[in-house]
Protein backbone atom coordinates (compact mmCIF):
# COMPACT_ATOMS: atom_id res chain seq x y z
CA UNK A 1 0.00 0.00 0.00
CA UNK A 2 1.27 3.47 -0.87
CA UNK A 3 2.00 5.80 2.03
CA UNK A 4 -0.85 8.23 2.64
CA UNK A 5 -0.07 11.89 2.15
CA UNK A 6 -2.41 14.80 2.53
CA UNK A 7 -3.97 16.13 -0.65
CA UNK A 8 -2.96 19.67 -1.52
CA UNK A 9 -6.56 20.81 -1.81
CA UNK A 10 -5.71 24.41 -2.70
CA UNK A 11 -3.61 23.24 -5.65
CA UNK A 12 -6.36 20.83 -6.70
CA UNK A 13 -8.99 23.58 -6.55
CA UNK A 14 -6.91 25.70 -8.90
CA UNK A 15 -7.44 22.98 -11.54
CA UNK A 16 -11.23 23.36 -11.37
CA UNK A 17 -12.28 26.74 -12.76
CA UNK A 18 -15.95 26.07 -11.99
CA UNK A 19 -15.19 26.27 -8.27
CA UNK A 20 -14.61 30.01 -8.81
CA UNK A 21 -18.18 30.32 -10.08
CA UNK A 22 -20.32 32.65 -8.00
CA UNK A 23 -23.98 32.05 -7.22
CA UNK A 24 -25.37 35.41 -6.20
CA UNK A 25 -22.40 37.08 -4.51
CA UNK A 26 -20.73 33.96 -3.07
CA UNK A 27 -18.40 31.37 -4.51
CA UNK A 28 -20.13 28.05 -4.94
CA UNK A 29 -19.66 25.31 -2.34
CA UNK A 30 -20.14 22.29 -4.57
CA UNK A 31 -21.25 19.35 -2.44
CA UNK A 32 -22.93 17.26 -5.14
CA UNK A 33 -20.13 15.15 -6.57
CA UNK A 34 -22.03 11.92 -5.94
CA UNK A 35 -24.38 13.12 -8.69
CA UNK A 36 -21.61 14.31 -10.95
CA UNK A 37 -18.07 15.48 -10.27
CA UNK A 38 -16.50 18.61 -11.66
CA UNK A 39 -13.78 18.29 -14.34
CA UNK A 40 -10.24 19.61 -14.00
CA UNK A 41 -8.67 21.66 -16.80
CA UNK A 42 -6.47 18.66 -17.61
CA UNK A 43 -9.54 16.68 -18.71
CA UNK A 44 -11.10 19.54 -20.64
CA UNK A 45 -7.75 20.31 -22.30
CA UNK A 46 -7.12 16.69 -23.31
CA UNK A 47 -10.50 16.53 -25.00
CA UNK A 48 -10.03 19.89 -26.69
CA UNK A 49 -6.57 18.91 -27.92
CA UNK A 50 -7.86 15.63 -29.30
CA UNK A 51 -10.83 17.29 -30.99
CA UNK A 52 -8.76 20.06 -32.52
CA UNK A 53 -5.80 17.91 -33.48
CA UNK A 54 -6.72 14.25 -34.01
CA UNK A 55 -10.47 13.91 -34.39
CA UNK A 56 -11.57 11.08 -36.69
CA UNK A 57 -13.63 7.94 -36.46
CA UNK A 58 -11.80 4.90 -35.12
CA UNK A 59 -10.90 1.41 -36.31
CA UNK A 60 -11.37 1.44 -40.08
CA UNK A 61 -9.76 4.65 -41.22
CA UNK A 62 -6.30 4.25 -42.72
CA UNK A 63 -5.51 7.94 -42.69
CA UNK A 64 -3.31 9.56 -40.06
CA UNK A 65 -6.10 11.09 -38.02
CA UNK A 66 -7.99 7.78 -37.98
CA UNK A 67 -4.91 6.01 -36.71
CA UNK A 68 -4.34 8.64 -34.02
CA UNK A 69 -7.97 8.47 -32.91
CA UNK A 70 -7.87 4.67 -32.74
CA UNK A 71 -4.67 4.81 -30.75
CA UNK A 72 -6.18 7.37 -28.36
CA UNK A 73 -9.32 5.29 -27.88
CA UNK A 74 -7.50 2.00 -27.34
CA UNK A 75 -4.96 3.79 -25.18
CA UNK A 76 -7.79 5.03 -22.97
CA UNK A 77 -9.05 1.47 -22.67
CA UNK A 78 -5.64 0.29 -21.51
CA UNK A 79 -5.38 3.21 -19.10
CA UNK A 80 -8.73 2.39 -17.50
CA UNK A 81 -7.85 -1.31 -17.32
CA UNK A 82 -4.62 -0.55 -15.46
CA UNK A 83 -6.44 1.80 -13.08
CA UNK A 84 -8.80 -0.96 -11.87
CA UNK A 85 -6.22 -3.74 -11.97
CA UNK A 86 -7.81 -5.57 -14.90
CA UNK A 87 -5.51 -8.26 -16.35
CA UNK A 88 -6.33 -7.26 -19.93
CA UNK A 89 -7.50 -4.10 -21.69
CA UNK A 90 -9.87 -6.30 -23.71
CA UNK A 91 -11.91 -6.84 -20.57
CA UNK A 92 -12.87 -3.15 -20.54
CA UNK A 93 -16.02 -2.30 -22.50
CA UNK A 94 -16.85 1.34 -23.03
CA UNK A 95 -20.53 2.17 -22.68
CA UNK A 96 -22.53 5.35 -22.21
CA UNK A 97 -22.75 5.13 -18.41
CA UNK A 98 -23.16 2.67 -15.51
CA UNK A 99 -26.81 2.19 -16.35
CA UNK A 100 -25.93 0.98 -19.83
CA UNK A 101 -23.17 -1.24 -18.45
CA UNK A 102 -25.61 -3.04 -16.15
CA UNK A 103 -28.24 -3.26 -18.86
CA UNK A 104 -25.63 -4.80 -21.14
CA UNK A 105 -25.18 -7.57 -18.59
CA UNK A 106 -28.88 -8.03 -17.89
CA UNK A 107 -29.59 -8.24 -21.61
CA UNK A 108 -26.82 -10.80 -22.04
CA UNK A 109 -28.82 -13.01 -19.68
CA UNK A 110 -32.06 -12.22 -21.44
CA UNK A 111 -30.70 -12.82 -24.93
CA UNK A 112 -28.98 -16.03 -23.83
CA UNK A 113 -32.23 -17.23 -22.28
CA UNK A 114 -33.89 -16.90 -25.69
CA UNK A 115 -31.09 -18.87 -27.38
CA UNK A 116 -30.90 -22.62 -26.67
CA UNK A 117 -27.27 -22.69 -27.83
CA UNK A 118 -26.09 -19.90 -25.55
CA UNK A 119 -23.71 -20.43 -22.64
CA UNK A 120 -25.69 -22.07 -19.80
CA UNK A 121 -24.25 -19.61 -17.26
CA UNK A 122 -26.43 -16.92 -18.82
CA UNK A 123 -29.59 -18.91 -19.43
CA UNK A 124 -32.30 -18.32 -16.84
CA UNK A 125 -35.42 -20.33 -16.06
CA UNK A 126 -38.28 -19.99 -13.58
CA UNK A 127 -36.97 -20.82 -10.13
CA UNK A 128 -33.56 -19.28 -10.80
CA UNK A 129 -32.69 -16.41 -8.53
CA UNK A 130 -31.11 -13.00 -9.04
CA UNK A 131 -29.81 -11.21 -5.96
CA UNK A 132 -29.35 -7.48 -5.37
CA UNK A 133 -29.58 -5.41 -2.18
CA UNK A 134 -32.18 -3.04 -0.80
CA UNK A 135 -29.69 -0.14 -1.06
CA UNK A 136 -29.25 -0.17 -4.83
CA UNK A 137 -29.41 2.83 -7.12
CA UNK A 138 -32.24 2.14 -9.56
CA UNK A 139 -29.54 1.48 -12.18
CA UNK A 140 -28.62 -1.76 -10.42
CA UNK A 141 -32.17 -2.71 -9.51
CA UNK A 142 -34.50 -2.14 -12.43
CA UNK A 143 -32.48 -4.00 -15.12
CA UNK A 144 -32.43 -7.10 -12.88
CA UNK A 145 -36.04 -6.68 -11.80
CA UNK A 146 -37.14 -6.49 -15.42
CA UNK A 147 -34.92 -9.43 -16.36
CA UNK A 148 -36.57 -11.49 -13.62
CA UNK A 149 -40.03 -10.53 -14.83
CA UNK A 150 -39.22 -11.45 -18.42
CA UNK A 151 -37.52 -14.77 -17.68
CA UNK A 152 -39.60 -15.99 -14.75
CA UNK A 153 -36.58 -15.83 -12.46
CA UNK A 154 -37.01 -14.53 -8.92
CA UNK A 155 -35.46 -11.29 -7.70
CA UNK A 156 -34.21 -11.43 -4.12
CA UNK A 157 -32.37 -8.86 -2.05
CA UNK A 158 -30.22 -8.44 1.01
CA UNK A 159 -31.88 -6.04 3.43
CA UNK A 160 -30.53 -3.03 5.31
CA UNK A 161 -30.06 -2.77 9.08
CA UNK A 162 -31.27 0.26 11.04
CA UNK A 163 -27.68 1.51 11.01
CA UNK A 164 -27.61 1.61 7.23
CA UNK A 165 -25.47 -1.52 6.75
CA UNK A 166 -26.20 -4.61 4.72
CA UNK A 167 -27.81 -7.37 6.76
CA UNK A 168 -24.93 -9.76 6.21
CA UNK A 169 -26.44 -12.40 8.50
CA UNK A 170 -29.15 -12.99 5.94
CA UNK A 171 -26.65 -13.90 3.19
CA UNK A 172 -27.00 -17.70 3.54
CA UNK A 173 -30.79 -17.47 3.14
CA UNK A 174 -30.80 -14.89 0.36
CA UNK A 175 -28.00 -16.38 -1.75
CA UNK A 176 -28.86 -20.02 -2.36
CA UNK A 177 -28.10 -22.90 -4.70
CA UNK A 178 -30.67 -21.37 -7.04
CA UNK A 179 -28.88 -18.05 -7.25
CA UNK A 180 -27.39 -17.40 -10.67
CA UNK A 181 -26.11 -13.85 -10.36
CA UNK A 182 -25.45 -11.44 -7.49
CA UNK A 183 -25.06 -7.75 -8.35
CA UNK A 184 -24.63 -5.31 -5.48
CA UNK A 185 -23.54 -1.79 -4.85
CA UNK A 186 -19.97 -1.29 -3.67
CA UNK A 187 -20.71 2.11 -2.16
CA UNK A 188 -24.36 3.10 -1.70
CA UNK A 189 -25.27 6.37 -3.38
CA UNK A 190 -27.89 7.47 -0.85
CA UNK A 191 -26.64 5.96 2.40
CA UNK A 192 -22.92 6.37 1.78
CA UNK A 193 -22.29 2.84 3.07
CA UNK A 194 -19.10 1.15 1.83
CA UNK A 195 -20.12 -2.48 1.62
CA UNK A 196 -17.73 -5.24 2.64
CA UNK A 197 -17.60 -7.55 -0.36
CA UNK A 198 -15.82 -10.73 0.75
CA UNK A 199 -18.73 -12.48 2.50
CA UNK A 200 -21.04 -11.94 -0.45
CA UNK A 201 -18.48 -12.94 -3.08
CA UNK A 202 -17.49 -16.03 -1.07
CA UNK A 203 -21.11 -17.13 -0.75
CA UNK A 204 -21.73 -16.46 -4.46
CA UNK A 205 -18.72 -18.65 -5.34
CA UNK A 206 -19.94 -21.36 -2.98
CA UNK A 207 -23.27 -21.60 -4.81
CA UNK A 208 -21.74 -21.12 -8.27
CA UNK A 209 -23.33 -17.73 -8.98
CA UNK A 210 -21.74 -14.91 -10.94
CA UNK A 211 -21.04 -11.90 -8.78
CA UNK A 212 -20.30 -8.28 -9.52
CA UNK A 213 -20.48 -4.70 -8.31
CA UNK A 214 -22.10 -1.43 -9.15
CA UNK A 215 -18.89 0.50 -8.59
CA UNK A 216 -20.22 3.91 -9.67
CA UNK A 217 -19.59 5.41 -6.23
CA UNK A 218 -16.44 3.43 -5.39
CA UNK A 219 -14.07 3.69 -8.36
CA UNK A 220 -13.99 7.53 -8.11
CA UNK A 221 -13.31 7.53 -4.37
CA UNK A 222 -11.39 4.48 -3.16
CA UNK A 223 -8.74 2.16 -4.62
CA UNK A 224 -10.56 -0.53 -6.61
CA UNK A 225 -8.71 -3.57 -7.87
CA UNK A 226 -10.89 -6.12 -9.63
CA UNK A 227 -8.41 -8.95 -9.12
CA UNK A 228 -8.26 -8.34 -5.37
CA UNK A 229 -12.02 -8.02 -5.15
CA UNK A 230 -12.42 -11.40 -6.83
CA UNK A 231 -15.58 -10.42 -8.68
CA UNK A 232 -16.77 -11.26 -12.19
CA UNK A 233 -17.84 -7.78 -13.29
CA UNK A 234 -18.01 -4.15 -12.23
CA UNK A 235 -19.80 -1.15 -13.72
CA UNK A 236 -18.88 2.50 -13.30
CA UNK A 237 -19.15 5.82 -15.07
CA UNK A 238 -16.74 8.53 -16.21
CA UNK A 239 -18.53 11.66 -15.08
CA UNK A 240 -18.41 10.81 -11.37
CA UNK A 241 -14.62 10.41 -11.48
CA UNK A 242 -13.59 13.81 -12.89
CA UNK A 243 -14.22 12.64 -16.45
CA UNK A 244 -16.81 13.67 -19.01
CA UNK A 245 -20.43 12.54 -19.29
CA UNK A 246 -21.29 10.09 -22.06
CA UNK A 247 -18.80 7.36 -21.22
CA UNK A 248 -19.15 4.47 -18.82
CA UNK A 249 -17.33 1.21 -18.26
CA UNK A 250 -18.23 -2.42 -17.92
CA UNK A 251 -15.37 -4.58 -16.80
CA UNK A 252 -15.96 -8.32 -16.93
CA UNK A 253 -13.73 -11.37 -17.01
CA UNK A 254 -12.67 -12.27 -20.53
CA UNK A 255 -14.31 -15.70 -20.56
CA UNK A 256 -17.62 -14.14 -19.55
CA UNK A 257 -17.45 -11.47 -22.23
CA UNK A 258 -16.69 -14.22 -24.75
CA UNK A 259 -19.75 -16.17 -23.67
CA UNK A 260 -22.15 -13.22 -23.51
CA UNK A 261 -24.42 -12.44 -26.46
CA UNK A 262 -24.24 -8.81 -27.57
CA UNK A 263 -26.63 -6.17 -26.25
CA UNK A 264 -26.76 -3.47 -28.95
CA UNK A 265 -26.04 -4.59 -32.50
CA UNK A 266 -25.02 -2.70 -35.62
CA UNK A 267 -21.85 -1.10 -36.89
CA UNK A 268 -18.34 -1.92 -35.65
CA UNK A 269 -19.30 -5.06 -33.72
CA UNK A 270 -19.24 -7.66 -36.46
CA UNK A 271 -16.91 -10.21 -38.07
CA UNK A 272 -18.94 -11.01 -41.17
CA UNK A 273 -22.38 -9.98 -42.34
CA UNK A 274 -24.73 -11.34 -44.99
CA UNK A 275 -28.36 -10.44 -45.48
CA UNK A 276 -29.26 -13.55 -43.46
CA UNK A 277 -26.58 -13.87 -40.77
CA UNK A 278 -23.98 -12.04 -38.76
CA UNK A 279 -21.02 -13.26 -36.78
CA UNK A 280 -19.77 -11.01 -34.05
CA UNK A 281 -16.39 -9.49 -33.34
CA UNK A 282 -14.51 -10.51 -30.21
CA UNK A 283 -14.99 -8.56 -27.01
CA UNK A 284 -14.80 -5.69 -26.34
CA UNK A 285 -15.80 -4.65 -29.91
CA UNK A 286 -18.76 -7.05 -29.77
CA UNK A 287 -20.33 -4.78 -27.15
CA UNK A 288 -19.50 -1.43 -28.71
CA UNK A 289 -21.91 -1.08 -31.59
CA UNK A 290 -21.87 2.24 -33.41
CA UNK A 291 -19.38 5.07 -33.10
CA UNK A 292 -18.25 5.05 -29.47
CA UNK A 293 -17.54 8.07 -27.23
CA UNK A 294 -14.06 8.78 -28.61
CA UNK A 295 -13.27 12.25 -27.29
CA UNK A 296 -14.89 11.18 -24.03
CA UNK A 297 -12.50 8.23 -23.77
CA UNK A 298 -9.62 10.69 -24.04
CA UNK A 299 -11.17 12.76 -21.28
CA UNK A 300 -11.67 9.69 -19.11
CA UNK A 301 -8.03 8.66 -19.56
CA UNK A 302 -6.98 12.16 -18.48
CA UNK A 303 -9.24 11.88 -15.43
CA UNK A 304 -7.64 8.55 -14.55
CA UNK A 305 -4.20 10.15 -14.92
CA UNK A 306 -5.29 12.94 -12.61
CA UNK A 307 -6.60 10.55 -9.95
CA UNK A 308 -3.51 8.36 -10.23
CA UNK A 309 -1.31 11.38 -9.68
CA UNK A 310 -3.24 12.25 -6.54
CA UNK A 311 -3.08 8.62 -5.45
CA UNK A 312 -6.31 6.80 -4.65
CA UNK A 313 -5.15 6.03 -1.09
CA UNK A 314 -4.74 9.77 -0.55
CA UNK A 315 -8.15 10.44 -2.07
CA UNK A 316 -9.66 7.89 0.29
CA UNK A 317 -7.93 9.42 3.32
CA UNK A 318 -9.02 12.94 2.39
CA UNK A 319 -12.63 11.86 2.02
CA UNK A 320 -12.58 9.82 5.20
CA UNK A 321 -11.56 12.96 7.05
CA UNK A 322 -14.27 15.03 5.36
CA UNK A 323 -16.85 12.33 6.08
CA UNK A 324 -15.94 12.41 9.77
CA UNK A 325 -16.09 16.20 9.86
CA UNK A 326 -19.38 16.35 7.97
CA UNK A 327 -21.04 13.77 10.26
CA UNK A 328 -19.79 15.52 13.38
CA UNK A 329 -20.91 18.98 12.25
CA UNK A 330 -24.28 17.85 10.85
CA UNK A 331 -25.13 16.15 14.14
CA UNK A 332 -25.04 19.59 15.79
CA UNK A 333 -27.92 20.85 13.60
CA UNK A 334 -31.23 20.95 15.43
CA UNK A 335 -33.78 18.45 14.10
CA UNK A 336 -31.35 16.85 11.65
CA UNK A 337 -31.35 13.07 11.30
CA UNK A 338 -28.69 11.22 9.31
CA UNK A 339 -30.00 8.50 6.98
CA UNK A 340 -27.16 5.99 6.81
CA UNK A 341 -24.17 5.11 8.98
CA UNK A 342 -23.48 7.79 11.59
CA UNK A 343 -19.81 6.93 12.01
CA UNK A 344 -17.08 7.54 9.42
CA UNK A 345 -16.14 3.86 9.29
CA UNK A 346 -17.03 1.88 6.19
CA UNK A 347 -18.67 4.96 4.78
CA UNK A 348 -18.08 7.49 2.04
CA UNK A 349 -18.20 11.29 2.25
CA UNK A 350 -21.77 11.18 0.93
CA UNK A 351 -24.19 12.01 3.73
CA UNK A 352 -27.99 11.97 3.44
CA UNK A 353 -30.17 13.56 6.06
CA UNK A 354 -33.62 14.86 6.85
CA UNK A 355 -34.44 18.09 8.62
CA UNK A 356 -37.45 17.81 10.88
CA UNK A 357 -40.48 19.53 9.36
CA UNK A 358 -38.75 20.83 6.24
CA UNK A 359 -39.00 19.09 2.89
CA UNK A 360 -35.64 18.44 1.19
CA UNK A 361 -36.73 20.49 -1.82
CA UNK A 362 -37.06 23.51 0.43
CA UNK A 363 -33.75 22.72 2.13
CA UNK A 364 -32.04 22.56 -1.26
CA UNK A 365 -33.59 25.83 -2.38
CA UNK A 366 -32.47 27.77 0.68
CA UNK A 367 -29.01 26.19 0.44
CA UNK A 368 -28.80 27.28 -3.19
CA UNK A 369 -29.56 30.84 -2.11
CA UNK A 370 -26.46 30.49 0.10
CA UNK A 371 -24.50 29.12 -2.88
CA UNK A 372 -24.29 25.64 -1.35
CA UNK A 373 -25.05 22.96 -3.97
CA UNK A 374 -26.49 19.68 -2.63
CA UNK A 375 -28.85 17.10 -4.10
CA UNK A 376 -32.41 16.63 -2.89
CA UNK A 377 -34.96 13.96 -3.66
CA UNK A 378 -34.92 10.16 -3.62
CA UNK A 379 -31.54 9.93 -5.38
CA UNK A 380 -32.79 7.13 -7.63
CA UNK A 381 -32.99 4.88 -4.58
CA UNK A 382 -36.68 4.80 -3.70
CA UNK A 383 -36.57 1.41 -1.96
CA UNK A 384 -33.86 2.78 0.35
CA UNK A 385 -36.08 5.79 1.11
CA UNK A 386 -38.98 3.44 1.85
CA UNK A 387 -36.78 1.33 4.13
CA UNK A 388 -36.12 4.39 6.28
CA UNK A 389 -39.66 5.74 5.99
CA UNK A 390 -38.66 8.94 4.24
CA UNK A 391 -40.00 10.42 1.04
CA UNK A 392 -36.78 12.15 0.11
CA UNK A 393 -33.53 13.31 1.67
CA UNK A 394 -31.01 16.09 1.33
CA UNK A 395 -27.60 14.70 0.34
CA UNK A 396 -24.23 16.39 0.62
CA UNK A 397 -21.29 14.66 -1.03
CA UNK A 398 -17.62 15.61 -1.02
CA UNK A 399 -14.72 14.89 -3.32
CA UNK A 400 -11.04 15.71 -3.77
CA UNK A 401 -11.62 19.47 -4.08
CA UNK A 402 -13.84 19.99 -1.05
CA UNK A 403 -12.75 21.70 2.14
CA UNK A 404 -13.74 21.86 5.79
CA UNK A 405 -14.86 25.45 5.20
CA UNK A 406 -17.40 24.31 2.63
CA UNK A 407 -18.86 21.91 5.18
CA UNK A 408 -19.04 24.79 7.65
CA UNK A 409 -20.95 26.77 5.04
CA UNK A 410 -23.37 23.86 4.61
CA UNK A 411 -24.03 23.75 8.33
CA UNK A 412 -24.41 27.52 8.53
CA UNK A 413 -26.85 27.50 5.60
CA UNK A 414 -28.90 24.78 7.34
CA UNK A 415 -29.34 27.33 10.14
CA UNK A 416 -30.87 29.68 7.55
CA UNK A 417 -33.28 26.93 6.52
CA UNK A 418 -34.45 26.75 10.13
CA UNK A 419 -35.00 30.50 10.13
CA UNK A 420 -37.14 30.50 6.96
CA UNK A 421 -39.26 27.52 7.99
CA UNK A 422 -39.06 27.80 11.79
Amino acid at each position, binding site marked *: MEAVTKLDVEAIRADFPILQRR*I*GDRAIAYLDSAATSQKPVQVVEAMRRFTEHSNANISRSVHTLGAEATEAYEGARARVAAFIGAPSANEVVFTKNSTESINLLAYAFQNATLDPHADPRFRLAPGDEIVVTEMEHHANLIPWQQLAQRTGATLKWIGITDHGRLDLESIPEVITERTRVVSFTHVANLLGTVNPTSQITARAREVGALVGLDASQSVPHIPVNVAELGVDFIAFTGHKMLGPTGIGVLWAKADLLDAMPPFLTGGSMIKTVTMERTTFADAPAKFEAGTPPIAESVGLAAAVDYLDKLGMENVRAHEKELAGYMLERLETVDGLAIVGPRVPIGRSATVSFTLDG*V*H*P*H*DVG*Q*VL*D*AEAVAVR*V*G*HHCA*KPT*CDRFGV*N*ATTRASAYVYNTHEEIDRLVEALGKVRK*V*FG
Partner: protein
Amino acid sequence: MNLDELYQEVILDHYKHPRGAGLREPYEGESHQVNPTCGDEITLRVHVDGDTIGDVSYDNVGCSISKASASVMYELVNGATVDDALARLAEFTELMNSKGQAEGDEETLEDAVAFAGVSKYPMRVKCALLGWMAFKDALVRASTPGRTEA
Protein backbone atom coordinates in the same frame (compact mmCIF):
# COMPACT_ATOMS: atom_id res chain seq x y z
CA MET B 1 -31.46 34.60 -5.56
CA ASN B 2 -34.17 36.39 -3.63
CA LEU B 3 -35.61 33.80 -1.27
CA ASP B 4 -38.39 36.09 -0.04
CA GLU B 5 -39.75 36.25 -3.55
CA LEU B 6 -40.07 32.46 -3.65
CA TYR B 7 -41.13 31.85 -0.08
CA GLN B 8 -43.67 34.61 0.34
CA GLU B 9 -45.39 34.96 3.70
CA VAL B 10 -48.67 33.76 2.23
CA ILE B 11 -47.03 30.59 0.84
CA LEU B 12 -45.43 29.75 4.16
CA ASP B 13 -48.75 30.38 5.89
CA HIS B 14 -50.63 27.96 3.62
CA TYR B 15 -47.80 25.45 4.03
CA LYS B 16 -47.99 25.58 7.81
CA HIS B 17 -51.79 25.77 7.94
CA PRO B 18 -53.16 23.94 4.88
CA ARG B 19 -56.83 24.63 4.12
CA GLY B 20 -59.18 21.78 3.32
CA ALA B 21 -56.59 19.03 3.87
CA GLY B 22 -57.65 15.41 4.41
CA LEU B 23 -59.62 12.96 2.29
CA ARG B 24 -63.39 13.14 2.50
CA GLU B 25 -66.55 11.46 1.18
CA PRO B 26 -68.48 11.74 -1.05
CA TYR B 27 -66.45 12.06 -4.22
CA GLU B 28 -66.89 11.04 -7.84
CA GLY B 29 -63.32 11.42 -9.05
CA GLU B 30 -59.97 10.63 -7.42
CA SER B 31 -56.47 11.17 -8.75
CA HIS B 32 -53.03 10.24 -7.50
CA GLN B 33 -50.13 12.29 -8.84
CA VAL B 34 -46.42 12.00 -8.15
CA ASN B 35 -43.49 14.19 -9.00
CA PRO B 36 -40.88 11.57 -9.85
CA THR B 37 -37.94 13.93 -9.49
CA CYS B 38 -38.53 14.58 -5.80
CA GLY B 39 -41.08 11.99 -4.72
CA ASP B 40 -43.81 14.51 -3.88
CA GLU B 41 -47.25 12.88 -3.89
CA ILE B 42 -50.88 13.90 -3.71
CA THR B 43 -54.15 11.99 -3.62
CA LEU B 44 -57.03 14.29 -4.43
CA ARG B 45 -60.78 13.77 -4.58
CA VAL B 46 -63.41 15.88 -6.27
CA HIS B 47 -67.09 15.92 -5.38
CA VAL B 48 -69.18 17.52 -8.12
CA ASP B 49 -72.60 18.80 -7.07
CA GLY B 50 -74.53 19.75 -10.20
CA ASP B 51 -72.50 22.53 -11.85
CA THR B 52 -70.53 23.21 -8.70
CA ILE B 53 -67.39 21.80 -7.11
CA GLY B 54 -69.01 20.51 -3.93
CA ASP B 55 -65.72 19.53 -2.27
CA VAL B 56 -62.04 19.08 -2.99
CA SER B 57 -60.24 16.95 -0.45
CA TYR B 58 -56.65 15.81 -0.53
CA ASP B 59 -53.81 14.09 1.25
CA ASN B 60 -50.28 15.05 0.22
CA VAL B 61 -46.61 14.88 1.11
CA GLY B 62 -44.19 17.33 -0.39
CA CYS B 63 -42.32 20.56 -0.23
CA SER B 64 -43.71 23.91 0.88
CA ILE B 65 -44.47 24.97 -2.67
CA SER B 66 -46.50 21.89 -3.57
CA LYS B 67 -48.35 21.79 -0.25
CA ALA B 68 -49.13 25.51 -0.20
CA SER B 69 -50.27 25.38 -3.81
CA ALA B 70 -52.78 22.62 -3.03
CA SER B 71 -54.10 24.63 -0.11
CA VAL B 72 -54.48 27.80 -2.18
CA MET B 73 -56.16 25.80 -4.92
CA TYR B 74 -58.67 24.41 -2.42
CA GLU B 75 -59.70 27.93 -1.52
CA LEU B 76 -60.06 28.94 -5.16
CA VAL B 77 -62.03 26.01 -6.53
CA ASN B 78 -64.05 24.73 -3.60
CA GLY B 79 -67.62 25.93 -4.03
CA ALA B 80 -66.88 27.45 -7.43
CA THR B 81 -68.74 26.44 -10.56
CA VAL B 82 -66.95 23.82 -12.64
CA ASP B 83 -66.44 26.41 -15.38
CA ASP B 84 -64.89 28.92 -12.99
CA ALA B 85 -62.65 26.25 -11.48
CA LEU B 86 -61.38 25.28 -14.94
CA ALA B 87 -60.80 28.96 -15.73
CA ARG B 88 -58.66 29.30 -12.55
CA LEU B 89 -56.74 26.18 -13.53
CA ALA B 90 -55.97 27.68 -16.94
CA GLU B 91 -55.03 31.01 -15.40
CA PHE B 92 -52.74 29.48 -12.80
CA THR B 93 -51.08 27.20 -15.35
CA GLU B 94 -50.41 30.22 -17.55
CA LEU B 95 -48.94 32.10 -14.59
CA MET B 96 -46.63 29.17 -13.80
CA ASN B 97 -45.45 29.02 -17.41
CA SER B 98 -44.70 32.75 -17.52
CA LYS B 99 -41.02 32.44 -16.48
CA GLY B 100 -41.44 35.38 -14.11
CA GLN B 101 -43.00 37.65 -16.75
CA ALA B 102 -46.58 37.62 -15.41
CA GLU B 103 -47.90 38.89 -12.12
CA GLY B 104 -51.29 37.19 -12.08
CA ASP B 105 -54.69 38.82 -11.53
CA GLU B 106 -55.33 39.15 -7.82
CA GLU B 107 -59.06 39.62 -8.47
CA THR B 108 -59.40 36.07 -9.76
CA LEU B 109 -56.34 34.20 -8.47
CA GLU B 110 -56.34 35.72 -4.95
CA ASP B 111 -53.58 34.13 -2.80
CA ALA B 112 -52.32 32.19 -5.82
CA VAL B 113 -50.65 35.32 -7.22
CA ALA B 114 -48.02 34.74 -4.50
CA PHE B 115 -46.73 31.92 -6.74
CA ALA B 116 -45.76 34.33 -9.51
CA GLY B 117 -42.17 34.25 -8.17
CA VAL B 118 -42.11 30.44 -8.40
CA SER B 119 -42.45 30.67 -12.17
CA LYS B 120 -38.84 31.92 -12.32
CA TYR B 121 -37.60 28.62 -10.91
CA PRO B 122 -38.21 25.89 -13.50
CA MET B 123 -37.30 23.17 -11.00
CA ARG B 124 -40.17 24.28 -8.75
CA VAL B 125 -42.94 24.90 -11.29
CA LYS B 126 -43.80 21.20 -11.26
CA CYS B 127 -44.19 21.37 -7.48
CA ALA B 128 -46.64 24.26 -7.77
CA LEU B 129 -48.69 22.49 -10.44
CA LEU B 130 -48.87 19.03 -8.86
CA GLY B 131 -52.13 19.64 -6.95
CA TRP B 132 -53.71 21.38 -9.92
CA MET B 133 -52.85 18.47 -12.19
CA ALA B 134 -54.49 16.12 -9.69
CA PHE B 135 -57.56 18.35 -9.63
CA LYS B 136 -57.81 18.39 -13.41
CA ASP B 137 -57.42 14.62 -13.61
CA ALA B 138 -59.92 13.95 -10.80
CA LEU B 139 -62.45 16.21 -12.49
CA VAL B 140 -62.10 14.28 -15.75
CA ARG B 141 -62.58 11.03 -13.85
CA ALA B 142 -65.63 12.46 -12.06
CA SER B 143 -67.29 13.04 -15.41
CA THR B 144 -66.34 9.56 -16.64
CA PRO B 145 -68.51 7.23 -14.52
CA GLY B 146 -66.93 4.02 -13.34
CA ARG B 147 -63.37 5.33 -13.53
CA THR B 148 -62.42 6.54 -10.08
CA GLU B 149 -59.24 4.53 -9.73
CA ALA B 150 -56.00 6.46 -10.02
